[in-house]
């Protein structure tokens, strides 16, 4: 900083401080909007009880739906092909398997989206559905 510079600053001291504070204010405004824009989408927060309840309901319904579909398909097969009760037994068991698979996928999907939210980045959520 040269002496002339310093003297110029001294001369225009009051307005300089004002300008500085205005710039500081502008900058904090800009940072605030910037972070608001880049914040992860406001989904249900991971911590609160409501979303834990939601997770529980989701996993349960994934499982139950698969068992119901398996049983329904088995019952239908039995009625159409007259293989009672083997279609119902086998497809019900397969339905249980599908239910476990559904739950595993759903929980991995939730873990992935939570990790993405934690990283505060927005890369596309990795949907690796293949085993």
């Amino acid at each position: 900083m040269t002496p002339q510079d310093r003297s110029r600053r001294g001369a225009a001291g009051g307005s300089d401080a004002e300008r500085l504070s205005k710039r500081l204010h502008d900058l904090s405004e800009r940072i605030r909007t910037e972070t608001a824009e880049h914040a992860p989408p406001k989904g249900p927060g991971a911590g609160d009880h409501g979303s834990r309840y939601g997770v529980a309901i989701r996993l349960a319904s994934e499982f139950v739906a698969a068992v119901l579909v398996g049983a329904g398909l088995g019952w239908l097969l039995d009625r159409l092909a007259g293989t009672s009760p083997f279609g119902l037994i086998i497809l019900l068991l397969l339905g249980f398997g599908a239910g476990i698979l559904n739950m595993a996928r759903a929980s991995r999907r939730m873990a992935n989206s939570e990790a993405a939210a934690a990283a505060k980045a927005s890369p596309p959520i990795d949907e690796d559905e293949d085993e």
Partner: protein
Amino acid sequence: MTDPLHQFEIHVIAPLFSIFGVQFNFTNAALFMLVIVAIICALLYAAFANPELVPSRLQSVGEVWYEFVHNMVRQVMGEDGMKFFPLVFSIFSFVLVANMLGMFPYFFTVTSHVIVTAALAVFVILLVITVGIMRHGLGWFRLFAPHGVPIAILPFISAIEVISFLSRPVSLGLRLFGNMLAGHIVLKVFAGFVVSLSALGITGIFGAIFPLGMAVGLTALEFLVAFLQAFVFAILTCVYLNDALHPGH
């Protein structure tokens, strides 16, 4: 005590026409669906009728609404999934407004009827199958045969995969229906306790404080559930459509 299921009854408002002996009626459910669509259109129109650089309150609500769905679609499906954005936005808005409208006393909750949620879910799954076959031809069915599986257990794995796929509309529709139905029944039962207990005199009135507190707490929870279920329905729509766009990815 009042009947907790009374709120789900469907009344005929105006009979319309009958085809092959099947009577079509304009019911309270149909009326509320029209109201939902009208509310969505009116809100969005009011929000974006004269947009400004510094948004007004209503406009920022509209922007948050839009960007929320926009981010969701782009995160799950990527850029080429954006052509499904209007669909996902419509489904999300419809379910959200239906759930929220159901929170008003004496209003009818459209999403507490399984036929409505099942129709939405089946529509989504049929769309997934259609888009998958249009995009990838019959190769899309490789979704049911993950590679790297030994040939001996492939039939089992395929059967499980098919059942898993078929269970998607069931879980999608039943979850929304079950949440809304159960929430409204529980709310009604607790509110009914307040009324019947307070009829018992002074001890009953003090005893009614507990169910009253529960009803207040449950109302808050129901608002959360109403939003959460709309969110879950929309994001699972995105996830399933992603399977149609990028199978086995």
